[in-house]
């Protein structure tokens, strides 16, 4: 689960990680009120959406007067913000964070991720802050320092020293204490809130000698939300695509994609592989939809209804390998959905596995208009032909 920058900064503040003073605003006049209560000019007006690349899309702007704060806030709130991560239609901005502008001396990158190979959290520190860390690690790997953190010991003082004394040029030695404290607080936050990623980019050293988190990004482990009730409440439903939101209500794994072939599959791996064969056959999937290894009739009905409510879908492929899920259950779910919502696009069904004969029989007797594919390859080429 992702949260907004202002929410992440609230958490930073709670954990003693310095952040700029800021105010949240939902209207231009609130933005001005916010600026009036903060040190400045200058102020920074920051769009609060989850997608990255906000700066490139014009969602993070400097303002030097109250009029400029108002005008900038109005512009950001009135138009969808398009960034490299939002897709071409952009994302509507509902909230702004107004912050004091800081006099920056140096920028750093500080983050913690789960390192799957090391099977532990790993802290990443770089003196090339303010840039895409992935890019830096490709072009200048020597500037990206990574240390695994042992969960029984936690972040150790020597690790802060390893990071700090590698800086070139090295800041005043007295700064070690501040860096070290931010690093260990960030780790404490990561562990106690079940994060999957925390990122401060940039972490800045101001001209007055303070270390401050200028930006804040936190992702949480979805699997741990059951024990992070306060975090779960930070979820912003507006950040979800309408169909995504509906699917998550029904406990379905649905991800909207750019194509026009609706696909329903049981199991995440098989769903991905089905998307891939659709693409190899020359068509584009409209979605990833995994109804689960052991889906119920109701889940199948709901899944199919979600696909049918997507106006872009020109043909549907159902690919089921019945293991735990029985093919007859699938067939009943499909027939039920077809009774509730008319299926106007070609439907291709590929069924295999447990109770396959019974499933095929149910579909046949339903008078539904559909085609049967004998295997995955045939299913993909049949569905691709419908849209070519």
């Amino acid at each position, binding site marked *: 689960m992702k949260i907004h920058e202002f929410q992440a900064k609230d958490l930073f503040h709670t954990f003693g990680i310095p952040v700029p003073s800021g105010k949240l605003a939902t209207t231009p006049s609130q933005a001005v009120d916010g600026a009036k209560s903060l040190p400045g000019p200058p102020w920074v007006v920051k769009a609060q959406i989850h997608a990255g690349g906000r700066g490139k899309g014009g969602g993070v702007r400097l303002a030097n007067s109250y009029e400029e704060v108002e005008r900038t806030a109005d512009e950001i709130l009135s138009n969808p913000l398009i960034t490299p991560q939002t897709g071409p239609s952009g994302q509507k901005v509902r909230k702004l964070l107004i912050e004091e502008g800081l006099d920056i001396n140096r920028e750093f990158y500080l983050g913690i991720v789960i390192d799957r190979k090391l099977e532990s959290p790993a802290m990443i520190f770089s003196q090339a802050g303010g840039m895409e860390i992935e890019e830096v690690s490709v072009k200048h790997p020597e500037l990206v320092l990574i240390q695994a953190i042992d969960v029984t010991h936690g972040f150790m003082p020597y690790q802060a020293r390893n990071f700090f004394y590698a800086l070139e040029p090295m800041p005043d030695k007295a700064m070690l204490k501040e860096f070290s404290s931010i690093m260990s607080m960030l780790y404490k936050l990561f562990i106690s809130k079940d994060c999957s990623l925390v990122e401060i980019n940039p972490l800045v050293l101001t001209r007055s000698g303070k270390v401050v988190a200028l930006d804040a990004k936190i992702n949480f482990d979805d*699997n741990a939300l059951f024990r992070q009730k306060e975090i779960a409440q930070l979820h912003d439903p507006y950040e979800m695509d309408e169909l995504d939101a509906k699917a998550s209500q029904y406990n379905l794994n649905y991800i909207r994609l750019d194509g026009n072939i609706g696909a329903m599959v049981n199991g995440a791996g098989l769903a*991905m592989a089905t998307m891939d064969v659709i693409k190899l056959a020359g068509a584009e999937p409209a979605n990833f939809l*995994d109804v689960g290894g052991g889906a119920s009739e109701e889940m199948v009905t709901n899944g199919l209804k979600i696909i049918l409510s997507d106006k872009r879908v020109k043909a549907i492929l159902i690919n089921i390998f019945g293991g735990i899920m029985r093919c007859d259950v699938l067939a009943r779910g499909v027939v039920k959905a077809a009774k509730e919502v008319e299926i106007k696009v070609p439907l291709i069904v590929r069924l295999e596995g447990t109770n396959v004969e019974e499933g095929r029989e149910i579909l046949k007797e339903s008078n539904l208009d559909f085609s049967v594919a004998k295997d995955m390859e045939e299913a993909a080429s049949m569905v691709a032909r419908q849209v070519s």
Partner: protein
Amino acid sequence: MGILVDENTKVVVQGITGKEGAFHTKQMVAYGTNIVAGVTPGKAGEEVEGIPVLNRIKDAVDIYGANTSCIFVPPPFASDAMLDAADAGIDVIVCITEGIPTLDMIKAVPFLRKYGAILIGPNTPGIISPGKTKVGIMPGHIHKQGGIGVISRSGTLTYEVVDQLTRAGFGQSTCIGIGGDPIVGTSFIDHLTRFREDGETKGVVLIGEIGGTAEEEAAEYIEGEFNKPVVAFIAGLTAPPGRRMGHAGAIISGGKGKAEDKINALKSHGITVVLNLGQLGKTALQVFKDS
């Protein structure tokens, strides 16, 4: 032969009285798995499919001789169940549970290794040595005893592959789901090492997906150390970055874990990669025909 589980495997089911646990206990018994006991704390004295339910897994080991456990315990309690099994002396722990917090696994894995327990999963369909035993939730009837080892990060995708292998005339020695989570107990390499030493296994099918670098590491191992033919498939060529594709571990993040990179790594180490899953059976025929 086959690896890790066979006709001598004595299984204890943790969470046997739950809906999933009870259902799959029945399925496993029907397949021929020797389930000696079940554990649900506080429910000792009950029976599931005629199998005694115990309060403590320790009793399943000491009294009934269990050496393998199959976990159906809900996510909040699953790491406790794993540690319990390892401490009691279980050799192979198969954790079916999906949705365990990553940090729980980061803490559990070193503990299990210290006790010498081998963890399959979590978030796995389990492990099956066809014709001998199945410890997990996969449909038994699509499998056939034979000479191909299968290692996978997925569930139904593995069933699809196994079905194609069986239809192409290739039975399986052992099929293992290593699990779809970011942190799992055993890797592709752990099991490749075992398949290498297994006389029954003539070739291996490796099924990967986006996320992490386990396939890249396996590719290097196969070229350098593995002595049997391998066919690989990677799911998620069309997966968008930054989105979790169902499995907690199936996510392209920080520019890492792309299907393309994995496929290129496998190919560059001389491994046959099937791009179209529909053609896996055919490819297996070509690669394994002399094995």
